[in-house]
């Protein structure tokens, strides 16, 4: 029963923080709300019996939030318009309204699939080994892409100086 209540609380936190991340005009608050969303998502993964997924989600979220926070601080105007309190309260009410269906609707999610006793490591390295290697190549290519994009910009700035 207690677990059930925890799951409901995390689901409400997930939806409310997701909506507020888009609704809040201040980028810093929006990014903090986005971080809360990822934390709630990670907690839900843990309650679903996926500890590896939960930890991985949390680790990835920390990096993503750091990048968003830095980018948001760099790009946000110094003195933006202040959002009215009424707008914020309305956003919170709408967000709670959006969270209601996922908490109240409870239909049976039974399945006829046979339960596999497959461990996480064997799922990753025996069933998806090729995918993991391909993934490494893709991530490396993307990292090189980021470096090239930023380097190109640096080269252009140097050319302008000369």
């Amino acid at each position, binding site marked *: 029963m207690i677990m059930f209540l925890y799951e*409901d609380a995390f*689901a409400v936190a*997930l*939806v409310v923080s*997701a909506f507020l*991340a*888009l609704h809040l005009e201040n*980028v810093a608050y*929006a990014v903090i709300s*986005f971080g809360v*969303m990822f934390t709630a*998502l990670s907690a*839900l*993964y843990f309650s*679903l*019996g*996926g500890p*590896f*997924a939960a930890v*991985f*989600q949390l680790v*990835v979220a920390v*990096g*993503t939030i750091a*990048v*968003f926070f830095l*980018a*948001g601080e*760099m*790009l946000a105007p110094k003195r933006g318009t202040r959002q009215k309190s009424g707008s914020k309260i309305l956003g919170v009410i709408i967000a709670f309204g*959006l*969270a209601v269906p*996922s*908490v109240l*609707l*409870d239909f049976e*999610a039974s*399945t006829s*699939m046979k*339960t*596999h*006793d*497959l*461990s996480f490591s064997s*799922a*990753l390295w025996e*069933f*998806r080994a090729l*995918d*993991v290697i391909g*993934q490494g190549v*893709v*991530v490396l290519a*993307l*990292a090189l*892409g*980021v470096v090239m*994009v*930023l380097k190109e*910009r640096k080269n252009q700035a140097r050319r302008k100086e000369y």
Partner: protein
Amino acid sequence: MNYIVLSLTLLAVGLYGLVTKHNLLKTLISIEMIAAAASMNFVVFASIAGDSLGQAFLMLALSVDTAMTAIVVALVLVAYRELKVLDVWDLSKLKET
């Protein structure tokens, strides 16, 4: 509680942000939400089926998603420094000039 409805709600919030918000960072946050909603289904269905393959898929999906975020943030930074533009509509108007 129903996780599939929760995933659909998260998807709807992400789509709402993608359609209504003009800020590039907010658009990227919306895309992240849509990706999170899709990834959530891996863990939910893995939990129903009782195996760990869904978690492995989630790790693969999250890695690609994070790499994509990194490159899009780099492009956003370049777009802002070169053009001083943070609005998606202003960026699309640049095609006409």
